[in-house]
């Protein structure tokens, strides 16, 4: 059976999205979900609503993992296959880390480039595939012009 590697952090299906929470008092969005109390120091809010985050954002930075990370990371394959990682800035004003979609590496990425959220298999255990959100680079190669980030 296919199931998310962590419950309640993202939706699956045709247009998957990260699930955060929005403070009903100040509207600040949090991912991973905040609940109980709002972390905006100017806000005393204690109620939140679940919100699906934008599926597209702009690459803040990127790298890869050439060596197998230590546990609790569970490698997807033996022998280990390196994967890329990207931090993507969403229109909600936050940056979210993720692995990069299978088949893409650092040569396909550039700060300021667009990326879109996809859901892929992170690892497989005795009960089936465990899925995770990943960032899919929208334009391959170093062709994209730098976004606004570059001007800062």
């Amino acid at each position, binding site marked *: 059976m296919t199931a998310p590697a962590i419950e309640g952090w993202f939706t699956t299906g045709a247009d998957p999205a990260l699930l955060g929470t929005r403070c009903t008092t100040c509207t600040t969005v949090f991912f991973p979900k905040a609940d109980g109390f709002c972390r905006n120091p100017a806000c005393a809010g204690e109620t939140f609503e679940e919100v699906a985050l934008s599926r597209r954002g702009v690459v803040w930075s990127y790298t890869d993992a050439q060596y197998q990370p230590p546990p609790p990371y569970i490698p997807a394959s033996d022998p280990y296959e390196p994967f890329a990682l990207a931090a993507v800035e969403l229109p909600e004003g936050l940056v979210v*880390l993720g692995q990069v979609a299978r088949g893409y590496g650092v040569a396909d990425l550039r700060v300021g480039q667009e990326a879109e959220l996809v859901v892929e298999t992170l690892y497989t255990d005795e009960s089936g595939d465990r899925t995770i959100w990943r960032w899919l680079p929208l334009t391959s190669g170093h062709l994209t012009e730098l976004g606004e*980030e570059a001007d800062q």
Partner: protein
Amino acid sequence: MTGSSNDVAVAGVGMHPWGKWGRSFVTYGVHAARAALADADIPWSDVDLVVGGETVRNGYGGYVAGATFAQALGWNGARVATSYAACATGAQALDTARARILAGMCEVALVVGADTTPKGFLAPNAGERWDDPDWLRFRLLGMTNPAYFALYARRRMDLFGATQADFAQVKVKNARHGLHNPYARYRKEVSVEDVLASAVVSDPLHLLDICATSDGAAAVVLTSVDYARRHGLDSPVRVKAVSTVTPTFPHTVLDMPNLSTDSSAVTGVPERTFKESIGRAAYEEAGIGPEDVDVAEVYDLSTALELDWIEDLALCGRGEAEVLLRAGDTTLGGRIPVNPSGGLACFGEAVPAQALAQVCELTWQLRGRAEGRQVEGARVGITANQGLFGHGSSVLLAV
């Protein structure tokens, strides 16, 4: 430098050489403590406060490091405290000692940090912790510490035109600085080619761009300026500021071990990043500006991070650190030498000792006693580091 009522004196400093010695952190800590007391020429019986930097990888004795060191030195009835603030542990311990001295509640404080570290990547403690970002980043993303360093490094490349050769040059510089430092673990010249030929760990960083983990210990004896004078120290190195500020919401720079940043959508982006605010608080507290700094010891967990710190400490403008590096300004003999000790590149990180080691080095520099690596005429020095979970520190010292 004129004194102020908020100064405390650095009466003595001491270290145990960094390395992989396979002994208990207590052994290293006592060695460093005794060296610092001998350097200060102050008897252990005069110490009325011991502050230990906690180590989280050495069992209960590490959690109560202050008492562990006090017992090992022989119980003398001193008050005791233990601090933990990730990489800023040593600075926070120093600040605890300073605060009690400035409050008139203590005259002589011994601050000790020591660690025995495991091999390889620093991994989280065992057990499943689905609400701990430090566990989740490994489980869900395979996000190691070097991967975070690599994100910052890549931004310098894509935004400011830094190159992997620039990063390698930081290593070359620091390796040369550390050649004559008896406390450094690695004392060997390294070439740009060596760095670029080493394996890529997390693109764009090579193995030689990333610091190792080490065993080591550092200790500082702090006293009131009054005590120092009575003890015959008329112009000691003084602690002018200890900054241990936390971030300001929204914290918009992705930080270890987090999977995301705060959102700036409602409140806007703060005027300063967390790392910028760490140095600024030190300058403000000291009443000393970046233009007065002669020497800096910054946390080069990766080569590229040294470049970030130079800008975060306002020693140059944003995106200009490579210009300083290429011009030799940050090399010994240059305008503003950075990491004359050799930095983490030559030491490897011994977490609870590292911020204190920075203070030891600057103390030797400001005394004019940093043999083989002296920054000529240094009067003002600043340290900087950042660790997990909103910890960071900057210590400003002057003579």
